[in-house]
């Protein structure tokens, strides 16, 4: 990564504490061994490596971290968390950063991934279970990518893997209340 000058005023001393409190993981224990980054299957897609994100959280580079592509293309495979010698739950830190980015309106890149999460959760909120067709429909309306993977969708529909009608559960109102109370 290219060296960049950072002004003291850019640093947010509260970020580290905030993320450590949210994740119950000691982000400050990182000694930059890079095991997380060398084993990361998505490293090639990232603007900052996982170890760099951890360093940036330690330094308090709030905006850079929350606006990064890394936090969205992380696939939550948990390889980093599993291999960290300092027991830092890096995958969980990524979760906390995504949530913080969303709640503070700072999420910037990979909008389609956020549309996917939104469509997926909306189906659960409605029925208590995922209804693939509603989820796909909502995602396509949001993104306008109607023809993408249409061939695969057709093959899955033909095989009865995508249902016309949703399956629901008696507890869907209880599920809806969970959504309401955590929104």
């Amino acid at each position, binding site marked *: 990564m290219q060296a960049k000058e950072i002004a003291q005023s850019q640093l947010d001393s509260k970020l580290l504490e905030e993320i450590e409190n949210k994740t119950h993981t000691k982000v400050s224990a990182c000694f930059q061994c890079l095991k997380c980054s060398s084993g990361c299957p998505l490293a090639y897609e990232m603007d900052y490596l996982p170890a760099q994100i951890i360093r940036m959280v330690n330094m308090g580079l709030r905006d850079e971290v929350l606006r990064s592509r890394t936090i969205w293309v992380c696939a939550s495979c948990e390889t980093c968390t599993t291999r960290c010698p300092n027991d830092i739950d890096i995958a969980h830190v990524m979760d906390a950063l995504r949530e913080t980015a969303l709640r503070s309106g700072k999420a910037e890149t990979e909008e389609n991934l956020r549309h996917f999460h939104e469509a997926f959760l909306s189906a659960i909120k409605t029925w208590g*279970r995922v209804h693939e067709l509603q989820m796909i429909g909502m995602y396509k309306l949001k993104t306008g990518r109607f023809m993408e993977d249409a061939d695969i969708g057709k093959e899955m529909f033909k095989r009865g893997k995508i249902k016309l009608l949703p399956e629901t559960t008696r*507890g869907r109102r*209880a599920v809806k209340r969970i959504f309401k109370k955590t929104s």
Partner: protein
Amino acid sequence: MKVAYYPGCSLHGTAEEYDESTQMVCEALGIELKELDDWSCCGATSAHCTNDKLSVALAARNLALAEKGQHKTLTVPCSACFQRLKAADYRMREDKQLAGEIVSLIEMPYAGNIEVLQIIQILAQPEIVEKIRVSVKKPLKDLKSVCYYGCLTVRPPKVTKVGDYEDPMYMDVLMETVGADNRFWSYKTECCSGGLAMARSDITKRLSGVLLTMADEADAECVVVSCPMCHANLDTRQNALLAEGKIPRKMPILYVTELLALAMGIKEVGALWSKHLVDPRPLLSSKGLA
């Protein structure tokens, strides 16, 4: 043996063949699966990626239902659901304050008395393996397989409690028990990209292309899986991958339970082959298995 059963949304939709073959195999082995009454979605990747409390609560609701139904063990065939339920249980054990908040969110108590097991952890128990061994009617002789576990059955080990998380053997033991020519390979627990498939299919194609190429390098003819996301990511994109020259050939992706049912001579499994995008019938017929 009585076990509560959490199918999860995929097994009632995109992965029906996993649900049906799991039920066939368990019935034949005397494992009584009792579907969890009123189960709801575990929240999957999208919940934990965007809302921490929501993700724990959606999963915990199902743990509480299992406890309410007086079950001891809850089995989950989907690796993603399995890991979300395990993670909710782990988080509530580790953090009593969070546990209190979750109980009030789900409006149900949860004492933490449910053991969550991935279905392959049950099937690979030594006494069940012995039962499988004596029920084999059609050994999968000459069927060259590699077993692919993906991420969420094994990681992170502090949550999953899996000991051999870098080299799990559950499915390998099962495939060897039913006589398959099971291969070793180094990609058992590599990532298929999971829930990125819809919004970033380019990533899914790249990661699944590597897996399929390495399976071919190991001289396998099929990949054996135990996760509906892994299945979809490996099964559905092979036409494009082949056309782009990213994989040497197409290869069927089979659920471990489908192959167990086949070896145990359960005829009904034959109806499931047409559910796959890469048709496994030519391969199975060439081995005299279908």
